[in-house]
């Protein structure tokens, strides 16, 4: 891999795992897109295709006790974090076996087991949450960090500003990961920000920040690991900007009037999966049959998830009011 990646000593095993994880996310989402046209999945569906290196690389560096806050574009994060594909797919269907019991859908995947705090659909709304989770951990002397994913569009929100300052001021253990895919829906970064260098913004809160090639999973992982270590040593929050690109439409309703085919094609050339694969071939980590095996395993997993979701039960409508408040007060 390029740049930072080159310096990392990647084992064959780890390289293949990264490839498999990214492919797993890709194939899952491709299937979701189909299911959306079949109206099995409804509501909004925001695909992560093209950006898989970010969630994959960062998630590799997190411990089980760490907490994750993500956005409505979070299928990749949920899968990479280890929520089962069955539970995620069932949630997309709105079934009771879904990871949010069918209440959340694509935009609101939650999982207590893996400390996965959503699936937040208000742009910027997850940032105060990350600060608060980290605050609790700090006050409870719990050795964990909170990793907060958000898009570059969120950087314009007041909640970004307030949360960055709070985290830096209180030296909270948060890893802010900005997935800079250049567009917020159809608004290009330079049409929404006077200062387009996102990492520089973070530094204006006296928060150490770096930018990394978000199409290079190895570079992402290396940077996240380094920053995470600094956080774990008590250094306070860190900021990682991942420069990436969304290959698909913003959601399923987007005619993409705001960008050219050429631009999309140029970025597609940098597909993080193709890139890692090429490198693995180059260094002869990818053996004959490896890819087919991986693809087959993933295809099985995806089809099993679809079958699981299809077969799963609907929440009885009588349970509409369940979980508005606690059943009994503790």
């Amino acid at each position, binding site marked *: 891999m390029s740049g930072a990646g080159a310096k990392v000593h990647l084992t064959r095993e780890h390289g293949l795992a990264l490839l498999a994880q990214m492919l797993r996310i890709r194939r899952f989402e491709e299937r979701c897109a189909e299911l959306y046209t079949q109206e099995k999945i*409804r*509501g*909004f569906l925001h695909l992560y295709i093209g950006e898989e290196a970010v969630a994959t690389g960062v998630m590799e560096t997190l411990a089980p006790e760490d907490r994750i806050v993500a956005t409505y574009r979070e299928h990749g994060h949920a899968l990479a974090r280890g929520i089962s594909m069955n539970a995620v797919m069932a949630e997309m269907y*709105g*079934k009771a076996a879904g990871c*949010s019991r*069918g*209440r*959340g*859908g694509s*935009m*609101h995947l939650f999982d207590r087991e893996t400390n996965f705090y959503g699936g*937040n*659909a*208000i*742009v*910027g*709304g997850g940032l105060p949450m990350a600060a608060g989770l980290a605050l609790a951990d700090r006050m409870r002397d719990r050795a964990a960090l909170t990793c907060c994913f958000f898009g570059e*569009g*969120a950087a*314009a*929100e*007041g*909640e970004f500003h307030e949360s960055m300052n709070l985290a830096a001021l209180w030296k909270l253990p948060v890893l802010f990961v900005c997935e800079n895919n250049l567009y*917020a*829906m*159809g*608004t*290009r970064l330079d*049409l*929404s*920000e006077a200062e387009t260098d996102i990492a520089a913004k973070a530094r204006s809160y006296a928060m150490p920040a770096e930018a990394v090639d978000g199409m290079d999973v190895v570079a992402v992982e290396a940077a996240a690991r380094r920053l995470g270590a600094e956080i774990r040593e008590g250094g306070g929050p860190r900021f990682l900007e991942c420069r990436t690109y969304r290959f698909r439409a*913003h959601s399923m309703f*987007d*005619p993409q*009037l*705001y960008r050219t085919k050429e631009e999309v094609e140029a970025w597609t050339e940098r597909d993080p999966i193709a890139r890692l694969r090429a490198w693995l071939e180059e260094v002869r980590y990818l053996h004959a049959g490896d890819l087919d095996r991986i693809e087959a395993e993933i295809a099985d997993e995806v089809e099993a998830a679809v079958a699981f979701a299809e077969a799963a039960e*609907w*929440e009885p*409508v009588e349970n*509409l*009011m369940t979980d*508005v408040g606690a059943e009994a007060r503790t």
Partner: protein
Amino acid sequence: MSVTTYREAVRAAIREAMQRDERVFLMGEDVGHYGGCYAVSKGLLEEFGPERIRDTPLSESAFTGAGIAAAMAGMRPIVEVMTVNFSLLALDQIMNTAATIRHMSGGQFQCPVVIRMATGAGRQLAAQHSHSLEGWYAHIPGIRVLAPATLEDARGMLWTALEDPDPVLIFENALLYNMEGELADDAGAVDIDRAAIRREGRDITLITYGGSLGKTLTAAEELEKDGISAEVIDLRTLRPLDEGTILASVSRTRRAVIVDEGWRTGSLAAEVSARIMEGAFWELDAPVGRVCSAEVPIPYAQHLEAAAIPQVPSIVAAARAAMGR
């Protein structure tokens, strides 16, 4: 008459306003290059340019506040907050500035801003994207709140709102954008003061607005089959309420049910019920009923969402109950 959609009617209204008055401009997230989240403003950037079809950063408070102030300084901005769900981020500017500035300044400043937003549930967008808060906004003095439910109103309310010297919030139920129908070729400005009787009836008054009008009219048809003649009032303007039309109708029919997609407690339906209590108590033959949303963050799953919001059967049932059947 031509066939058009609610979306096109809103777009035509914006276009006409931009053409008629150069102080008018549209500002909001993705109104320009994207073409509008609901494609309402599609094509307008090409026609009017980026100064007047102004994409904003994701900064609801600042751009809404900027629109409010631009209105104070002589412009006639149409601020589009993509959906009511995000408008909470701009609420300080709406309640503490737009709604107060005329009074607080002793009448020196006024704020003829129009703030549009999509509202409503029904598209499986779950808890953070399904709010119906237009009735809640109607609590705030100093603003006018509109809920166009028909093609005529989608086409005609905007211009009247822009001529209003005070802030006007327009809530467009997102499920209506695809609604198709006939619209007069010369359709234009409509009043924004009065409720409209969308269907005349003798036995009961069904009072509603916005996204629930269609369901309520359907319910009225069902009731007709049962021999119950329901009058249907479309409130149109949620603040100030046209109490006269409501009370006159209820005094005639002596029974009423209010249909409101807002959560039940503290709904606009509660206010309408209280007004009827105060203004037509002695005329009532039965307690006024309410069909509102269940008090739950709207769930994603289709059957749960459908169960959470008013539907034709629940309206019919409430009307029958009010008839003592």
